[in-house]
């Protein structure tokens, strides 16, 4: 494999809250290759969105990055000064969010919001900026882009708002797009249209995409590789086919068996017993799945362990993998 576009290494993030310190991420590592679409999968509380926000540098004040490196084309973005980080954001890497309507400024015309980003990253005259904003709208297949420039988010459907979000994110042709639950809350038919659009734009531009979602089926359909997260840990990383056909981590295997689209009869469904450990605990076990796991060994509690390579491009963080 050539050098990855983005390499996240040993990222550890804590949140300070009223009720104590929450250990949200611990030693999170994964790579995204150029032109690759990866899926970061996890249930609520797995830390998948926090990972994305850390990469983009938009965590809120309560967060503390304890350690880790986020290398983008070899440069650690965590070490950048504020100015170069601002120049990087939106130009080299950008993000789209869940809830497309609230992610847009409600009282600014969508065309102006796109133009703001273009004007920020490329020196150009106002008329030229406008032309490029229209082009950005056209690119996300918005009918009648000239007229839509003056529209406000409340006048557009959820699907159209998400296309505007994509247009803003892609206005400066970034190399990496992070899509944070981009279709949650949209109808399935709209979801398909938006996801097809993202995939098409990615392949046109050779852009990498990190799709963050709780929907394993969605990721399986669109992603080349999948990263499974559980309670702030990366538990398994592999090519999509491998994850689906030969999951090695007990959590991944259980997760797969709880997805309705993979089974034919209701009694084949299997739930995962227990719940996430309280991430405020100081005595979190080295494997945060251990307390819900039926393959737990005494060695599971014996100190930290690293993810191990179990196949080509297939890593698992487990002492007793399947």
């Amino acid at each position, binding site marked *: 494999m050539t050098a990855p576009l983005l390499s996240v290494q040993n990222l550890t993030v804590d949140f300070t809250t009223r009720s104590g310190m929450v250990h949200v991420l611990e030693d999170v590592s994964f790579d995204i290759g150029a032109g690759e679409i990866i899926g970061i999968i996890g249930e609520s509380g797995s830390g998948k969105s926090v990972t994305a926000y850390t990469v983009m540098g938009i965590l809120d004040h309560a967060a503390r990055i304890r350690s880790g490196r986020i290398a983008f084309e070899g440069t650690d973005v965590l070490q950048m000064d504020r100015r170069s980080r601002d120049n990087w954001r939106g130009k080299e890497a*950008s993000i789209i969010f869940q809830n497309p309507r609230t*992610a847009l*400024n409600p*009282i600014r015309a969508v065309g102006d919001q796109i133009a*703001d980003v273009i004007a920020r990253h490329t020196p150009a005259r106002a008329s030229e900026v406008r032309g490029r904003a229209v082009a950005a709208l056209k690119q996300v297949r918005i009918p009648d882009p000239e007229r839509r420039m003056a529209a*406000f988010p409340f006048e557009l459907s959820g699907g159209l708002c998400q296309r505007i979000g994509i247009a803003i994110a892609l206005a400066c042709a970034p190399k990496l797009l992070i899509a944070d639950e981009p279709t949650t809350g949209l109808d399935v038919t709209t979801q398909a249209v938006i996801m097809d659009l993202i995939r098409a734009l990615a392949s046109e531009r050779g852009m990498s995409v990190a799709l963050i979602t709780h929907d394993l089926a969605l990721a399986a359909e669109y992603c080349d590789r999948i990263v499974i997260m559980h309670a702030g840990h990366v538990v398994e990383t592999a090519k999509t086919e491998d994850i689906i056909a030969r999951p090695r981590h007990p959590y991944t295997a259980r997760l797969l068996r709880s997805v309705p689209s993979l089974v034919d009869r209701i009694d084949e469904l299997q739930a995962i017993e227990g719940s996430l450990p309280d991430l405020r605990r100081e005595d979190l076990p080295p494997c945060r799945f251990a307390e819900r796991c039926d393959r737990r060994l005494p060695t599971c509690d014996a100190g930290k362990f690293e993810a191990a390579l179990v196949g080509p491009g297939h890593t698992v963080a487990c002492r007793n993998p399947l």
Partner: protein
Amino acid sequence: MTRIALRLLSAIPTLFGVVIVTFLLTRVLPGDPAVFFASNPSMSTDDIAALREQLGLDKSLIEQFWIYLVALFQGDLGNSLTTGQTVMTEIINRLPASAELTVFAFLLAIGVSLPLGLAAALRPGSLIDHLSRLISTLGVSMPTFVTGLLLIYVFYFLLGVAPEPIGRMDPFLFDPPKVTGMLTVDALIAGDMEVFRAAFTQMILPAVTMALFALAPLTRMTRAAMLGTLGSEFVRTARASGLSRRKIIFTYAFRNALLPVVTTMGMTFSYMLGANVLVERVFSWPGIGAFAMDSIINLDYAPLQGFMLVMAAIFILVNLTTDIVVTIIDPRASK
């Protein structure tokens, strides 16, 4: 445009309600004005009855209301029994004094509170944030009449820098030629800087008193609204797009934060109109608040009625203005 016209129309029922309330309130005033003026023992009961008839107090309430309404439409607010002038003339004479003071105080309050609230929201937990919280909590806790007296004591009695708190003008100077009735404005129009300075210095203490009172809600709302928009998802999008700090703060966060702030401005203005009465009393300011107080003491109901109507009309106007400003800022409001 149609929206503004509709909004104007919708103010009519409110205005009508206001007229009813003012009418009713003053009709149940305990002192029958006729009796009050008839307290002169030389007046016979026939004279009193004649006076009551002259004032229309012998008619039914509905009839009285109708007469009142018809007069109102002709711009007739009745006569002040104590000064003998029509209420309209009295109000027109005194309104500029109140307006000058209130508007100046309002601008002062906005000029301080918006930057203060903004700065506090940008650095929560910082010194300036604590300062803004202290000022806004103190501001709502200080009764205007106490603040006013305190300022008089410090700046007039102790330091001697402020003029004597008796009215709008140095008694040794002449008023500028009347154009708007607002002395500072008229002085500027006449180009008389000495008079302007005199009128302006007279206004500083009462204006600061009122501004201190108005500061609190405006600062609080600016801070809260700013914190809200700064934490919103669209500001997160703007940050993730690498937009400059300036653009994020002003174009994205502040413009959105202005919406609730403008609404609060309207409310604050209403409070200030009420506080006017107290401040005018403390500083012997010859505005309409002081005029209303005099008429209450004298059980002279026509001026009180006129005063309440004018106040409500001004307030409805202010609300209308805030609505229009909100419509300009927020495209959603015009739908």
